[in-house]
Structure formats: C-alpha cells, structure tokens
C-alpha cells in the first residue's frame, strides 16, 4: 500500500514534465511516421512488422539502428542484394531525427550517446579492437570479406557516432555489442583507436590497403623487380 502511494505520488510529480516532452516528441514522431510511410513502408511493413524476404521488423531496434542505417546512406535500400552498402544520404539531419523519434516511439531500443566519443583510452581501445573487431574489419580497420558476397566495411569513412551506433545495434551481420559487453568507455576507446589509425600517415606514401609487410614486399618485388628487368632488357637491346 505504502509502495503504491509513493509510486503514485512520484508519478504525479513527474507527470507534467513528461506531458510537455511528449508534446514536443509527438510532432517529430508524426513527421517521422510520414517519412516512414513514404520511404520505408514497402520493405518494413505498415506497422513496422517487416515484410518476409524484403525487410526485417523495426520494432525495438531503437534510434541507434535508424541513425546508422540512414546516416550512412545504407537505407533507403536501392535494391535487394547481399548486403546494404554505404551510399549517398537521402534524408536531411532533421528528417533523420524524426525517423529516429518514430522508431524509438515504437518499442524503444538502444539510444544514441551524446558528448565526446573519442575521450577513451587509446591503448585499451587497440586491445579491444584487436580482440573484438579486427577479425572481420582487419587490424587496420580496412574491412574484409564475409560469406556469400557480404563484407565487413572499411571503417575509414565512418564517423564516431556511426561507429558507436553500429556497436550498439549490430547492423546486418555484425554482432551486437551491448553496454554490458563493451562499456560506453570501452566503446569510446575503440572509436578513438580506429580514428587515430585512420589519421596516421602512411610513411611509405602508398598504403596498399595497409595489408601488412608481406603484400608490400610482393608489390615491391613484382613492380620494382619488373621495372628493373625492363630497364636491363632496354639497356641490353640498345647496346
């Protein structure tokens, strides 16, 4: 009884604030629903329940998933293929916010973080990246092939927020890294590491995909030795 009274009292105290918030949100939700019904409904269904063989249900995927898919231009999907790939962004930032509000209002789900996403510890980020991410995204974050035409994308184009959203929501075949598996600090460390990797210069000039010393050696051998052989033959034929 006491609990009920306390809960009721608390609810009454909170209620006016949440009503005001709802008023702001509901316009965004309505605008988001309109956008959804124009651009997404064909594959994700009238009530976000998904359409078999076209698109998954969006109930409970959260705003993080919407932000990742739409802000990287993966959605709206141009055509059905092995995997949606990065492309030109169709919606404006405001429209993305409205879509996020609409999806978040239907079933909740992971929320986007705010603030500086690069204040994590760099060395710890490297460790975590190699343990959790490098197997698919390559140790230099350059991506790699998966089965049946799918791939783990190159991380050099991804923004901090997109990386964070990807870890939270596990887009397509990427495993989900919830906050109990990789804490927000650990996620920021990983982002810091990946962006530092990307900003570091290539001392040799040409990175060759940062694939490592063996492919670099092969390139030197094939190209360099080939050029030298051509030079040798040229000098020989002129003499």
């Amino acid at each position: 009884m006491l609990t009920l009274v306390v809960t009721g009292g608390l609810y009454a105290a909170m209620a006016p604030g949440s009503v005001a918030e709802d008023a702001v949100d509901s316009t965004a939700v309505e605008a988001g629903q309109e956008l959804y019904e124009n651009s997404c409904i064909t594959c994700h269904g009238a009530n976000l329940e998904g359409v078999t063989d076209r698109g998954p249900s969006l109930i409970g995927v959260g705003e993080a998933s919407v932000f990742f898919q739409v802000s990287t231009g993966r959605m709206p999907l141009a055509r059905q293929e092995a995997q949606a790939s990065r492309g030109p962004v169709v919606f404006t930032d405001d429209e993305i916010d409205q879509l996020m509000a609409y999806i978040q209002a239907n079933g909740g789900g992971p929320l986007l973080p705010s603030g500086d996403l690069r204040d994590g510890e760099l060395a710890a980020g490297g460790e975590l990246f190699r343990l959790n991410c490098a197997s698919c995204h390559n140790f230099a974050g350059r991506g790699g092939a998966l089965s049946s035409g799918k791939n783990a994308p190159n991380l050099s184009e991804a923004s901090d927020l997109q990386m964070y959203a990807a870890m939270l929501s596990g887009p397509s075949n990427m495993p989900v890294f919830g906050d109990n598996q990789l804490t927000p600090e650990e996620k920021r460390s990983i982002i810091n590491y990946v962006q530092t990797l990307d900003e570091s210069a290539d001392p040799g000039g040409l990175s060759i995909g940062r694939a490592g010393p063996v492919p670099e050696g092969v390139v030197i051998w094939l190209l360099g030795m080939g050029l030298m052989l051509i030079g040798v033959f040229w000098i020989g034929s002129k003499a």
Partner: protein
Amino acid sequence: MSNHRADGGEQYPAPPPSSDELATMSHTELDALGAHMDETELLVLSQAPPPGSIAEKRAERQVALCFGLATVFALAFVSVFWGAGWFLPDWEYEIDGSTFGSLFTPLLGLTMGAALAFLGIGIVLWAKKLMPHEVATQQRHGGASDPVDARTAGGTIMAGLERTGAARHNIVRRSLLGAGGALGLLALMPLGGLIKNPGRGDELMKTSWGEGIRLLRDDGTPIRPSDMQPGSLETVFPAVEGGNRQADAATMLIRLRREQVEQIEATPGQEDFGFQDYLAFSKICTHAGCPVSLYEQETGRILCPCHQSQFDVTRGASPAFGPAARALPQLPIEVDGDGFFVARSDYPEPVGPSFWNRET
C-alpha cells in the same frame, strides 16, 4: 692434342716472345698478344670520336655534367642528413608536424638515388660516346683433359691414399669410422627436440575447461546471462592461471537472435549443452587451427578467415561450406549459484584440426 684449334697452330703454341721482346712491347701490343694467345679476335664496329673533334668535346661535356650532378646530389644527401635539426628543421616525424619532417626520408632516398643514377648514366655515356665499339670473338676449346693428365691426376690421388696406410692400419681406419659415425649421431641430436609424441600425456585430447570453471572475458571478468544482447559474440577463456593465453581453450560464447533459438538442431547427445539462447563453441577451426571468429549474427554462421570454412551455429556449428570436415566442438555451459556462466565439463572431443591418433 692441338687439332681442336681452328686455325692450325700458327698462333699459340707458337713460341712465346722472349722476355727481352716483352720488355719492348707497349700496353696495346701486350693486350693484343694476350688476346691472340687466347684465340680471341677483336672486331671494331665503330671508332671513338677523333681526339679534339667537336663530337668528342660534346660527349666529354655530357659525361662531366652527369658526374657533376652526381656530386651535387651526393652533397645534397649529406646536407639533408646532417643539416636536419641544425640549419634545416628537425627530421623526426610527427603527425601534423613540419613538411620537412614528413619529407626527410623521401629526400634522403631521392638524393642518394639521383646521385647513383647520374653516376651510372655518366659511366654509360662515357662507354657509349667516348670509347670504340668492339665485338670480341673467342674460339671454343675442347672440353676433356688430355688422357695423360687424367691418368696422372688419378694416380696422384690413389698414391696419396696408399701412403696414408689406411688399408693396412685396420685399427686406425675402424676407430676413425667409429668417430665419424658417433659425430653423425651427435649432429642428429638437435632434431630430437623437434620430434615429440603428442599423444603422450593426453595433451591434444583435453583443454583446461572442466566442471565449474567460469567463463571469463580476456580481462578476467565473469559473464552473466544478462550481459550480452541477442546476436552477440564474446570470446571467453577458462578461469585458470594463464587461461587467456592458452591457445586451445579460446571459446566463443554466442547469444542467438530470438528467431534462431527455434531453429536449433543440436548435435545428437549435446542437446543440453547450451544455456537458454546461449551456446559456446571452440574458437579453433577444425580444418587448420585458425581462430574462427567472423560471426555473422543474422545468418548464424561463423566464418574462418584462413580457408573460408563456414560453421552453422544453429546446427551444432557443423560445417556448412569450405574445407573443414568436423563441427566446432561445443562446450557444455550452465550458470552457477552466483549467476555467472561456468563450464559443465571439458569439451567432449579434442579441439582443433584432425591428428592421426584422435578417436572421434
């Protein structure tokens, strides 16, 4: 045996010039005599430009220009190398540092390369423009030695062997053979360390996992069923000393998506190895032992990056594609009294690639 000489013996072995004659000969004559004795003929294709001619002067200037440029670039190398941090900016490379810092190594390479290239070009120009072009021909000589030489050389070797008395001194010969054999055996000893019976002591048959051993993250923290989201993967290690450095114990703890739970077709006899929607499989590929952790959460497939073997998680990680022939061994898991994941036993079969004396 002079019949192999093509031009009938009028050259060598014509009597060689006496030492008095040699003393009066010029370098050119001596060179010609040597070539003659070697049955080598020089064919001059074109002469060098006449001394003092315009062509010669021009060629001289070109060669000298190349050598001069080689000098300039070599000195430039020295001044870049020693000048950095002195009269030039510091050479040490820093992100967003000076342009000179990022150009230091390429500049060293370019100046040294240019110096060597101009030196080479100068030498080639010298040879092509200031020297006569000649072709030398030499008679081919017969291959075999004179039979007398062959017999006497053989005799020298055999007589030498006889003088050692090896045939007579039996005890010396046999003890030497014994020493040689023992030394050969000695040389084989280092190979002993490479030959090991992996079946002994059950090393390949079991891992550190066992009943009640917790599943730990790389940083040593235990895992609760609420820690992972559906469609996630965590690499886990046994809670034993140095567990996260044991190559055979690495295990993938996978939480399936909701719709995948209904599709589970467990390996017969291993239906209860998972815990709710969690399954744990060995991370070591059964084909060649690579770490398989390219987990596709939508298709529920684990991909091995080495040879593209794929394992279907919902069907007991049985191979779905590629060279692997056996399923990834499944680790039976449960949750202990504190709510953390523990293993119920070791893997039911050896992890990793096949080997000759494994039974399953």
